[in-house]
């Protein structure tokens, strides 16, 4: 039976807000558009920051990248607060179920000491690297220009906090508070971790938001995630029978696959706009990714031993191919 619900049909006076008509034409706008375009102040600002009078409160000139319209950096995922939160809530549910599964069946205790040790050694210090990413993405959100770009950076920052907390819970589950203490000590003084920590601390003093975006989201995560979560956790630990670990880090794999699309879109768009942008981006990507490969090597060695050089080499090649596709030649 077909039920025809009727309400009174009223004549709308307009389809959407003026600024969206100018951008997209005279039709109904999406919620992403309503929540992301032209809601940031653009002109006639009142006071210059007392914390840095050289810049304005919203300032396109604090980066070397030049865009005629910063709103070209549309997020292909079209994340605004609602869609972002709902997506993460679903993933959180799965992760909770995974943690529950591993814990209730004692799968952690079933891991061999050797594999458990490798997992903790490689993963736990990364909670500090993740916090570094949280700091860096928060910076890019704060000082970047245009909501389409900056809101995605805030989501990235909070994702990294979430990841840092998942890693911490993994440590508590597999090794209790001692695992977290040991991981922090390694982060602070074990030789394998010092190059990465140095990298992260150097990022914390970069004040060009776009360069920081490249250093963190493109160069470092672009190598760290494939190396750790695909090659070590999925590729090595799971194949050796420690797939319980992969259950606890599934969030990180899914997250990287999703966010990579956004990162690529940002770089591709910025690079395509001008030779100047492309050259700047190439310089940054080259410099930071060369260093990222170097810092990841000793970490990869903790799991893959003499396979490390080859593995890192493969991922670097993959990274270069990925960059080439989006217009960055390194």
């Amino acid at each position: 039976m077909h039920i025809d619900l009727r309400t009174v049909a009223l004549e709308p006076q307009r389809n959407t807000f003026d600024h969206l008509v100018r951008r997209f034409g005279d039709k109904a706008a999406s919620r992403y558009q309503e929540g992301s375009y032209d809601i940031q102040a653009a002109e006639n600002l009142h006071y210059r920051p007392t914390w840095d009078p050289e810049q304005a409160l919203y300032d396109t000139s604090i980066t070397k990248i030049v865009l005629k319209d910063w709103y070209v950096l549309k997020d292909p995922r079209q994340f605004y607060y609602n869609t972002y939160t709902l997506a993460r809530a679903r993933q959180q549910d799965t992760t909770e179920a995974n943690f529950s599964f591993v814990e209730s069946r004692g799968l952690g205790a079933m891991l061999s000491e050797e594999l458990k040790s490798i997992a903790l050694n490689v993963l736990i210090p990364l909670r500090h690297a993740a916090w570094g990413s949280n700091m860096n993405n928060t910076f890019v959100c704060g000082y970047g220009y245009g909501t389409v770009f900056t809101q995605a950076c805030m989501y990235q920052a909070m994702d990294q906090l979430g990841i840092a907390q998942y890693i911490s819970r993994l440590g508590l589950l597999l090794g209790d508070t001692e695992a977290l203490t040991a991981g922090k000590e390694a982060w602070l003084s074990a030789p394998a971790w010092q190059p990465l920590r140095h990298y992260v601390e150097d990022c914390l003093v970069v004040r060009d938001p776009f360069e920081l975006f490249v250093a963190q989201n493109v160069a470092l995560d672009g190598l760290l995630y494939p190396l750790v979560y695909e090659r070590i956790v999925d590729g090595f630990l799971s194949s050796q029978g420690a797939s319980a670990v992969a259950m606890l880090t599934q969030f990180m794999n899914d997250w990287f696959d999703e966010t990579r699309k956004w990162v690529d879109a940002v770089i591709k768009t910025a690079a395509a706009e001008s030779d100047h942008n492309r050259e700047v981006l190439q310089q940054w990507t080259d410099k930071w990714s060369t260093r990222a490969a170097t810092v990841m090597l000793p970490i990869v060695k903790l799991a893959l031993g003499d396979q490390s050089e080859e593995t890192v080499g493969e991922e670097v090649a993959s990274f270069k191919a990925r960059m080439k596709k989006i217009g960055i030649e390194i």
Partner: protein
Amino acid sequence: MDTQVTKKKLGLKERYKLLTRDLGWEPTHHTRDEIYPYVKYEGIKIHDWDKWEDPFRLTMDAYWKYQAEKERKFYAIIDAHAQNNGHLNLTDARYLTAIKIFLQAISPGEYAASKGFARMGREFGGVGTQVACQMQALDEIRHAQTQIHAISNYNKYYNGFHAFSDSRDRIWYTSVARSFFDDAMSAGPFEFMIAIGFSFEYVLTNLLFVPFMSGAAYNGDMATVTFGFSAQSDEARHMTLGLECIKFMLEQDPDNLPIVQRWIDKWFWRGMRVLSLVGAMMDYMLPKRVMSWKEAFDIYGVENGGALFNDLARYGITAPKGWDIAAGAIEHMSHQLFLGLYQWSFGTAFHGWIPSDDDMDWLSSKYPTTFDKYYRPRWEHIKKLEAEGTPFKNFGLAKLCQTCQLPTVFTEPGDPTLTCHREVDYKGEKYHFCSDGCKDIFENEPEKYIQSWLPMPALFSELGGDIGAWMDWVGLRNGIDNGDYVGSQDQVNFDKWRGMATSNK
């Protein structure tokens, strides 16, 4: 056989510490000053960031889970509201004047707060503080977006909403809230936290939100009620952050006290000026009134604020300097401002109107010592002129206060017949103020406030005084978005549509 190792049972506080502040470390390749370059110049002394007590301890997974639940409920309701022509449930489309002001003036502030908190989330030196600020940055973008989404349906049917993005940086009354947020964002991180986290989000928040949201509930605006209650649950977290900020600053070093007190004095005053719009809204713009601005101030200002400052007295904090003057002005400010908005309705992207006899009787009952003496006569006079075909309208504005940027319509404390006006000469220029409070703020930081971009002088300097050109520039459509409610398209349409929905004609 699995060997069970007894895991330590971690309490909420311990576990949260491991999941947040334990993530940070003392850097060795750069100094803290290089990584956190803005935390010292204000003179606030912090000796131990670890003494920070985390306000609501929400891990990211819990945040996603609970916020998603709020989001699902929220959008289900506003979708239903739109589908069912919920706007026809409004008491009267006059009410939308309040919502137009909200979208034009308040929503941009939510977004500005989001940027401000993102910066705080990076610039403060302690992980606990950083995380709390970052969550607030996320929440504020939620508020900006949910407000736009809730109000979007009204834009389809009513005027005054369509150019909110264009008028934000250009029209005159939005500058009151805009300069407030710019002021906070251009201040240092500690002042920002006192300005927004404490003064706005703690002391004054209930004075802004509860009236708006109750006003929405009383007047059939389901979309705004839903937004309000959904957002308010985030506000509870913001309040605890604000309160913790001030306690932390005061507990870290006694030298911080005079600095913090000065900020409390300044931001209470600036906040009360922004809230004059809320007062006018409560007393004049709601067809079905919730309570008077005076009553709201008694509950949320005096009672609640009183409890708060009694609590903070142990640190040496006193109630804000302008409190008594602000309290004395409560009987007057809403009337004075709405009279102004009425006469300047040529230049507002919302409608004004003359209160009805019933409205005026309500105002008499709520303001027994002031309304009939000072304001009813003015309204009666205005009614008379309107009836005679010469409505009392002004096509220019009073000068704007250099600090708060309101037109100088308020009166001398103690004399409601005398406009309050102050002046300061600074580096060869004369600056004008609406009050001692605003003048003091200027005199404390003149180099900052001389930078104010005043919107009405801009009409002359940038558009040669051409009102038509000005209207185009701010996105105001003459005869459509502005002027009196009576005779407006909004009135005609609302009545027509309501008639369609409720009769068979």
